[in-house]
């Protein structure tokens, strides 16, 4: 019941707790990484807040590319100098921030641009299928006469193809 209430309330406290724990652990054991990650992955957080889809496609889309922008600086931090100072230098560098946010922006653009393209593609496919099925029906009617399209069931009785086309 508690789980249900939590879900109904729109906030999953176990996730918040999990995230909090990760943040605390990162702060304790890898504070420079957390310093780079928090501002670097900010667009992903914003995307998560704005994303209304159940599957959080926008979050994944922005997050995936945002990570691409952040990861080179994380890798540099981990391999060169894993210190708070180095992390602060990265964060304060406008170029690095620009790279991180541009990658996230590119992810957002992908999220905006790909669905209409896919939708248009699927519509074309459906129209081609309908055309094929109509042609098949027409062949059947030519071969067997218009009464082949008269179904006894009154509820599902379709009109003859010729009429329907008109």
């Amino acid at each position, binding site marked *: 019941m508690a789980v249900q209430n939590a879900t109904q309330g729109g906030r999953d406290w176990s996730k918040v707790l999990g995230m909090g724990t990760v943040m605390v652990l990162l702060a304790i054991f890898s504070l420079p990484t957390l310093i780079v990650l928090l501002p670097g992955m900010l667009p992903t957080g914003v995307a998560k807040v704005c994303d209304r*889809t159940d599957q959080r496609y926008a979050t994944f*889309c922005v*997050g*995936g*590319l945002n990570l*691409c922008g952040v*990861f080179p600086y994380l890798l540099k931090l981990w391999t060169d100098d894993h210190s708070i100072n180095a992390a602060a230098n990265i964060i304060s560098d406008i170029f690095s921030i620009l790279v991180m946010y541009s990658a996230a922006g590119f992810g957002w653009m992908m999220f905006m641009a*790909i669905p209409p393209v896919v939708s248009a593609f*699927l519509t074309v496919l459906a129209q081609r299928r309908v055309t094929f099925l109509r042609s098949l029906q027409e062949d059947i009617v030519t*071969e067997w006469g218009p009464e082949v399209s008269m179904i006894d069931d009154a509820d599902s009785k379709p009109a003859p193809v010729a009429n329907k086309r008109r």
Partner: protein
Amino acid sequence: MAEEPLETEETGTDLPDGLVPPDEDALESADDSDGLMPPHKEPESSGRGGPVLLRERYLVDSGARLPEFDQPSAKAYAVEDRRDLANKVFALVCTPGVPVRMDDIIAFRTMDFPGVLALIEWEVVPWPPLGQSAMVIVYEKPLGGRVIDRLRRKDVRITEYDVPRRLTEPLIEGLQALNDKIGPHRALRPDNLYYLDADMQEMVLGPHVTAPPGFDQPPDFEPIDRATCQREGRGTGDIRDDVFALGVTIIHIVTGYNPVAKVKPENLIHQRLENGSYTALCGNTRLPLPLIEPLRSMLADDPSVRWNHTEVNNWVTGQKTNPVKKTSSPRAEVPFRFRKREHLTLATLAWHFAQHPSDAVRAVQSDDFVNWIKRYPEGSATLESIRGAVQTAKFHTESYQGSDYFLVSKLSNILDPTAPIRYKDLAFMPDGFGTLLAIHWGLKGDPQEAAQLLAHDIPTLWFTTREKLSRPLLDAQKNIAKLKSLLAINDPGYGLERVVYESNRGFACMSPLIAKSNVVVIEQLLPALELAANSADTSSRPIDRHIAAFIAARFDQDIHPHLKALASPKEDTSIIGMLSLLAFLQWKLRAPSMLALTSWVGGLLGPAINAYHNRHTRDQLEKEIPRLVRKGSLPEIFNMIDDAEKRQEDGEGFRAAQEEWLQAEEEIRDIEGAGEERLTKAERSGQQAAATISIMLGLTVVSILLVMEIM
């Protein structure tokens, strides 16, 4: 009192197209004749004419009339036997529209009847003077000519002493021979007796098959019950009716004249009903003493006491006879006056009432009538019955049972149970209903009244008032019940058309398509339709209600499935029913190739072909039909059109195609009907794709960077 007209399929106000109206003068001569006068004697020459070949043997000259052999309903023509020129024969051409006695005609072909003029051959052939086909019957030519002509010319003399041996014996022999094998003659009268030989030694009965029984007889020669009928409704009767006609014939021949020639027909009927036929027909004539008892016995009005052929034979051979005693029928002491005629008996009153129904209904409710009938012998019981009938009529004022006609029909049965069935203007014996209907429809063009009395069950009224039903009456009752059941069905092959053909074996089919062909027997039907195909409107069907009923009545095979299909409201089934019936006829009758008819039928098969769903099958059938039409074979066309295997395949294929069409339709509906949902779905797919690409890209970049760093 209400009277609603019967709704019948055809109103019959006109003759069928193409049927030539009969020679009314010739037909009426039967009633006008006194029995001594032969039919028209003046030589006639037809404007149109020429020889007509019958059965490829007898050459009938339509321009050479032989009036001395005429019958009231058939004209005689000269005939030449092409195979035997010495064979002396003549032909009688029957009147189209008048039923012939087909059973007797067929029986004459296979049996010999001593004492009866021999029927040699018959055929329905195109008859130029009428412009249509007619039944032509070839008879042996009686070389001695007509007996009455010989008597008039005093070539021969028949005295009272010659009557038993020279007149009665040969005639009763002929009547008996006929009766034993096929039935009564019912055309015995002085002008229908012939001498077979030139020496005038052998007297024979003349032709009797050219008209229904009693149709050609003057009323004097009919027993009183049949004499009061219309001549088309006199019925088959039996040999006792022939004995009656023999008695009247003897009177005419012995006296040399008709004793009642000057009496008006209605007065004669009145006298016969009141005083008995013997007294009325002999008039004041003094008959030879030895003939009085035999003649009274032969002319007895009660058929149960009238002499039969055995008694007549006994008299002829000098054996002991049982003469009928002179009895007087009950009569009133004072007459009842109805429409200026005075009545002493209920029989005359019943006869007169039937002629004036409205006046009769008023009369029976008058005090005068009530007082009169109360004093009539056993009149009180009759009065009770009459009151019951009147009361019943008053209960049914809104239906036909409350009509004057219906009530008077009942009154007639009550007043005179021996009288014929009377309704409206009709009077007929139960065994004469068929011919009555046929003549009213075929000649007068109006079957309405005859059909109405059957639908209104008038014969049943008559049967219920009879105290005892003899075997022939029981048969007639059964037959009428059967006809009524046929009338009740309105499908092709039934109805009034079926009634008329079922009750008249010798009545030609009245369908306008083949009326001119005068089709009497089933074997003639297909050739007649073949002929009609050349001139008929081929957009109409070759089987109409008349033809369907004619086939049902004449064809001795079970055709109910064909008729059922023919009656179907679905056009394709009905067409197939028509085709199957015609094909069945052609097959069973072994009819030759029918090119025109097949072409006609082939042109009507559109709906039957379209009953196949598959276009290729239809195309194939349409290509095949012309080939089969050229063969003239209806069975082959039927087999091709109604192939059970092909139909099954077509049906199964159609159902599969229907299923396939439906599946396609459902899929289209799914695609088209989704609308916003489909767009949303597509957008979600796009978002998913974008997320996937992004994740994949991210993982790829991370992996590459890690690998580069490690290396």
